[in-house]
């Protein structure tokens, strides 16, 4: 099909010039995949969900830069879709439509772009969202690193669902859907040529099905996508917002042995490693079993488990009970970690 029309195998500045080359690139690489039925430059959105009384619109946007753009378990395209889908999902919305804007570095392989776009298509299909509009820009060498993607998403929050960190109450339990830090460790391994066992795959995945399942089964007070800054940052944000303390148990943290190993060698704390398919949510203690069971019916929730609880204590403080029984403060990550042991 349209693929034939592209002569070069890498992107040139001409592809961003606004002329025929650009139209060829867009049609052959993007719209033919996202909208095989023909592109509309502006989406006109219609959905019955929006007409339900009490339903609210959710809207989010995110930019994605990943080095390397392809890594064990995914690529930047997969993250760009999952990231925005998850942003909507953890806010309680059912994701419906996405936009995607690409900034492409001159010299980027067309084949790479095709792979990225294909994984976006697959991920969007899984999440049941449509990529309805987009944009492409080409910049000179060195002005970007291969490809940057910005996705925006629109979803609908059904009536009666309010997820908000200030709803967290004393005694509520904190649940994660699975192992921590896989994405961060996979990226480190891919970037550093670290001679790691290549077993570590990014956890990059959509969380919308999981969220719908758990919201149907329990009163989810609040939920956060533990992306950059890891579970530690997600917990700190929530503790800050609810004005309680949060205590997690070191022994309860689900960690893959390989990730634990990499963290130990590199001196990194898995609580701060980025995830791209890991969430933290709070439910009342007596609904924890129901929430866990519902999460486990979905692919992304197989490893769901309780890691801690909200309790009285210094407002906004997150602590971790350690193996020995002491409580260590788990702070928000501030910049790069510099050594402190004097």
């Amino acid at each position, binding site marked *: 099909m349209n693929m034939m029309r592209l002569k070069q195998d890498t992107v040139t500045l001409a592809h961003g010039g606004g002329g025929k080359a650009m139209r060829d690139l867009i049609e052959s690489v993007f719209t033919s995949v996202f909208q095989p039925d023909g592109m509309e430059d502006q989406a006109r959105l219609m959905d019955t969900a929006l007409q339900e009384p009490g339903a609210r619109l959710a809207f989010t946007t995110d930019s994605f830069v990943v080095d390397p753009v392809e890594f064990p378990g995914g690529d930047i395209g997969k993250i760009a879709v999952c990231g925005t889908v998850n942003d909507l999902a953890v806010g309680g919305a059912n994701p419906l439509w996405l936009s995607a804007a690409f900034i492409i570095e001159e010299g980027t392989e067309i084949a790479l772009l095709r792979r990225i776009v294909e994984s976006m298509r697959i991920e969007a299909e899984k999440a049941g969202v449509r990529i309805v509009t987009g944009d492409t820009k080409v910049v000179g060498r060195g002005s970007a690193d291969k490809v940057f993607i910005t996705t925006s998403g629109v979803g609908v929050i059904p009536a009666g669902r309010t997820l908000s960190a200030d709803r967290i109450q004393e005694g509520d339990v904190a649940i994660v859907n699975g192992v921590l830090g896989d994405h961060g460790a996979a990226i480190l391994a891919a970037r550093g040529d*670290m001679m790691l066992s290549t077993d570590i795959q990014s956890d990059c995945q959509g969380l919308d099905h999981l969220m719908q399942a758990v919201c149907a089964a329990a009163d989810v007070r609040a939920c956060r996508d533990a992306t950059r800054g890891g579970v530690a940052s997600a917990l700190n944000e929530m503790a800050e917002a609810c004005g309680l303390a949060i205590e997690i148990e070191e022994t309860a943290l689900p960690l893959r042995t390989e990730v634990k190993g990499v963290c130990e060698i590199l001196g990194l704390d898995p609580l701060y490693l980025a995830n791209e398919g890991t969430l933290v949510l709070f439910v009342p203690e007596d609904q924890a079993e129901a929430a866990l069971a519902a999460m486990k019916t979905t692919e992304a929730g197989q490893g769901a488990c309780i890691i801690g609880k909200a309790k009285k204590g210094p407002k906004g403080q997150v602590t971790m009970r350690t193996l020995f029984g002491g409580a260590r403060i788990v702070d928000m990550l501030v910049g790069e970690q510099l050594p402190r042991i004097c």
Partner: protein
Amino acid sequence: MEGLRIRVRGQVQGVGFRPFVWLLARELGVTGRVLNDPEGVLIEAYGPAATLPDLLRTKAPPLSRIDGIEVTPITGEAPTDFVIAASEGSGAETRVTPDAATCPDCLEEIHNPSERRFGYAFANCTHCGPRFTILNALPYDRSQTTMAPFAMCADCAAEYTDPADRRFHAQPVACPACGPKVWIEPHHDAPLAEAAARLHHGEILAIKGLGGFHLAGDARNAGAIALLRQRKMRPAKPFALMGTLDTIRQYAAPSDAEVALLQDPAAPIVLLANRGSLPSEIAPNQSTLGWMLPYTPLHHLLLDLLDGPLVMTSGNLSGEPQVIGNEEAREKLAPFVDAFLMHDRDIARRIDDSVERITPHGPMVLRRARGRVPGTLPLPKGFEDAPQTVAYGGQMKAALCLIKNGQALLGHHLGELDEALTWEAFQQADRDYSDLFDHKPQVVAVDLHPDFRASRHGAARAEAEGLKLEEIQHHHAHLAACMGENLWPLDGGEVAGIILDGVGLGPDGTVWGGEVLLGDYTGYERAAWLRPAPLIGGDMAAKEPWRNALARLDQAGLPDWADALFPDKPLAMARMAAERGLNTPQSSSAGRLFDAVAACLGICPDRQSYEGEAAMTLEALAQKAPPEEMAFYYDINASGSRIDPAKMWEPLRNDLENGVSTEIIALRFHSALARAFACAAVGLVQQGRARAIALSGGCFQSALLLDLTCHWIEAEASSLGIKVPVMHHTKTPANDGGLALGQALIAAARHLG
């Protein structure tokens, strides 16, 4: 009529100073009055008062410290009597003194069957007993202490109100009729006898003390010690010991200076050479044991029933601060102990035992806590008008410092601030000391490191209250702390600081820690430093010595030796991380160089089970080598600003392969490092750029390193035919426990300038 007005400055309040003056005046037939005011004690004396000022000095009460006496003549109508008058003014500098060990008079009473306090575990008087640890709020008055629930009986009240009595105004005064009581859980009618019997049988007890709970066991019973280690999950960190002086002499040979330190009212833990007749599990691989004398009547009465020493380690969960509440103890310590020796006087403030030692160069403070705080330190000349300043110290051995009225109050050792309870204690200490000193700072000083909790706390306070914030480089603060403690004047000129430390952030964004700084209270330059090496895994490098050996050996071109030494370690990955700069900051840390050498000698290469284990074990080894071996130091190349250890590894490896003992190797290394830094610093003095040398940083907790550095400074100076004054720490810790003093001085100096 002619009289004298006598102003007494120093630690003269809450130590029985006014009744002492009252008695003295009555003996001399002097009339007039004595009172407390914000500046100390004020006396107006008429009659034969000429000898009074001298007598004040020579006969001062045991817990007082006189910094100055000023006498001015007055004229007035001579009163007919001598009275203790009401206090005048408010805002006294410090109004509560440190806790003090049981005095000889009280000791005699609890052992005398005819005394009403015979066998009483809470006897105290103006010359001894709890102070800071029972204080809830100021002013220091019984109603504001944890003695408040105990109403004085008529006998105690009579003593309390009689100026001629040793217990005049002793706030915690108590007796068996009205005071706190001791008991044991599980219950037994004779708690002390039961406790002694249990200890005899090798059981572990929680004992409530002055600043917290201890875990106690029979120090002669290796099984009991092993049990304690296992329960506390503390494999190797040394345990402290408590025994009477007679007992201590059975196991150690304390010098006169060491005995005097043991008997100081502060009753610190004193490190004494280990003669090896107690089980080695008390302090594995260490050359010293930490001993203290019993310091409360409860301790004395318990030791009376035992014929030997006790292990007395702080009662806490690993990493957490000491437990202080009865309920908290039952909850947290139950898994560790077989019984609890409890009492019902609450501990208001958690304070660890102080740890000190005597070196050939005088006393050394390793941990400044119970018995030392809230004592104040005088400031050097030039700081008389220093603005009120608060400094928040470091991250690992947090202690804060306040400056006011030409005095510094360096707070007690708090611990590591990422520990939730320690963080809470830090915030409490900030409020407490501020109240205690009636402190209204204009300037806030913090470390340059943005991720120290203390730095963030200080920055937030400065912002909230609109105060000046000063960010102080870590090793500059160590230097200033040493200068300040030694009263180096503000205008005394530049000093060459040999700062051998763990890590501290430099203004260049790299991590410093083995430096020769040339500076004064206001500024510094980095004159020479240890060649940087990567800290592989950041803070992990401080825990796992092999990482530092790998970094240094690779740097020295001996990667094959690293391969051979650490075959089980993920060397390839560690090297890759170092190469790519992945959490591997460059550092000139001297502490990590000690770790590197230790790892090569097989000293806990995998992991230190407590902070400083590698370096302390290395010191203990070196102490056993023939001292003349220090002449055969390895080559640490010092030229210009660079102090490079790369060349020492080859000969070190040859020594090891040729069967030279690890003791000798350890000494040759210590000597080499000391010599390289000594030469660099003496060079600055010779060039006329520095007027003295100051030694600071955590590595100078090693008595050996201190001694060798002094030795090489002396040797180098005399070979150059110059005299070099040397300053080192004797009253404040060389480690981060003293950091805040330096920060406060620098910040204050900048605002004086």
